[in-house]
């Protein structure tokens, strides 16, 4: 498949069957786009449409174009040709395999060398608390470990020009590090989030309601300033979280 220079979302209908308020969204490489909205407003459905490269064949009737054209069937279905990686909210593995077996199999399905397996586990262990071992059964991993493993898998095995991330903040892993890992330069990244820090770190954000796209907001300079203040606050929260997790006391903590 040729290089991706544009991803286009041709909007469809919302849950009531009415046309979405935005007709078309164009996204270029290097852009991080947020997807925000109340729970149940259709954020996950939007990224699922992108993951499937829907062609009007899902309930939303959206069409997803790559470089302005409908992608062929091979690109839509064959993981060896697919150029989209998705970190979904489904954190629990159902596969009864070891971590190593699973990653090997996944590397094979994506036409990657099996050397990548070790690398995935190493990266995953930088994001999570208790370390993951190659011989662990997938089914015993915690939610956070599974999410860390999936994030690392996306960075290495599923390394793709389009990356879709669904609520990474809920996983109990280091969200800013995870986003940095996934949103490498030159990629198209869409992040579903309820987290103000992540939402304001994006260049634009898609606002969802009742299953439909309502508007697209460009992050203003004012918002960027708010974001950098929030990052400080967030890092402070994270350091407190770590201290508490490690069994430490936070009596000396200052209230900012």
């Amino acid at each position: 498949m040729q290089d991706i220079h544009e991803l286009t979302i041709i909007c469809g209908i919302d849950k009531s069957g009415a046309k979405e308020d935005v007709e078309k969204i164009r996204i270029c490489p290097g852009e991080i786009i947020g997807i925000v909205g109340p729970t149940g407003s259709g954020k996950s459905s939007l990224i699922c449409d992108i993951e499937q490269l829907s062609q009007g064949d899902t309930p939303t009737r959206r069409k997803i174009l790559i470089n302005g054209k409908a992608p062929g069937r091979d690109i839509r279905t064959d993981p060896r040709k697919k150029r989209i990686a998705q970190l979904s909210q489904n954190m629990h593995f159902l596969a009864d395999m070891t971590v190593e077996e699973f990653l090997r199999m996944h590397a094979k399905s994506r036409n990657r060398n099996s050397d990548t397996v070790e690398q995935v586990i190493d990266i995953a262990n930088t994001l999570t608390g208790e370390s993951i071992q190659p011989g662990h059964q997938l089914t015993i991993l915690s939610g956070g470990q599974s999410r860390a493993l999936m994030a690392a898998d996306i960075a290495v095995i599923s390394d793709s020009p389009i990356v879709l991330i669904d609520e990474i903040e809920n996983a109990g892993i280091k969200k800013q590090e995870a986003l940095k890992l996934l949103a490498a330069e030159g990629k198209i990244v869409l992040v579903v989030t309820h987290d103000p820090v992540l939402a304001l770190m994006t260049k634009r954000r898609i606002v969802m309601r009742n299953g439909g796209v309502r508007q697209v907001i460009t992050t203003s300079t004012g918002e960027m300033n708010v974001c950098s203040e929030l990052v400080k606050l967030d890092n402070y929260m994270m350091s407190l979280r770590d201290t508490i997790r490690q069994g430490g006391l936070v009596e000396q903590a200052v209230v900012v």
Partner: protein
Amino acid sequence: MKLVVVAGTPGSGKTSVLMHTIRSLKQAGMSPAVVKIDCLWTDDDKRFERLDIPVRIGLSRDMCPDHFAIYNTDEMLTWAREQDAGVLINETAGLCLRCAPYPDGCLAVCVIDVTTGPNTPLKVGPLLTTADVVVATKGDIVSQAEREVFRERVNEANPGCRIIEANGLSGQGASELAEVISETPDVGQELNLRHNAPLAICTLCTGETRVAKKHHMGVLRHIDGFTEYRGE
């Protein structure tokens, strides 16, 4: 007329995927008819009737549902022709995974549930290995990586098949399946099974309920694989 045989593990979403597929077929101007084979009970005929198409059910009762479906294929085809159907869809009960009720000349569709884990494609046997199309359902419940690993396993078990990721709730994949159906050639006269039906010629088949070995006759296979014929 075309023949489509749909098999798959119980609860994999055969009927739900078919409901959406039939809508797509009708939109494309084709006239589908459905025969649903089940063992003891079904109300799927009521679901299919809502689509305003000819529907017939067959209950195999104490007979193997796949044997039942195979014996009745001629009758089903005759019935569907009487309904002026362009395509007969036979949804089987498919329980024991030892055989595959697919004749040559049909479009063989195996529906399989991704949440059963990536080893399932290796366990399902001829139901999957002799299918033309493998429809993987419930992929929305697992991660993308797990879907891709599952797909890889299906490819290993049946390298030539076409894999369709479908969702019985949203209808994802149904239009693709309908497209494959519309490209299928008409069914021929002399049908042969792609895989033999399971070995089952013994006293249990005719109603013996006593467990002890001495009561059994016919073609019997021991736990170590030794197969013998006991009887006259």
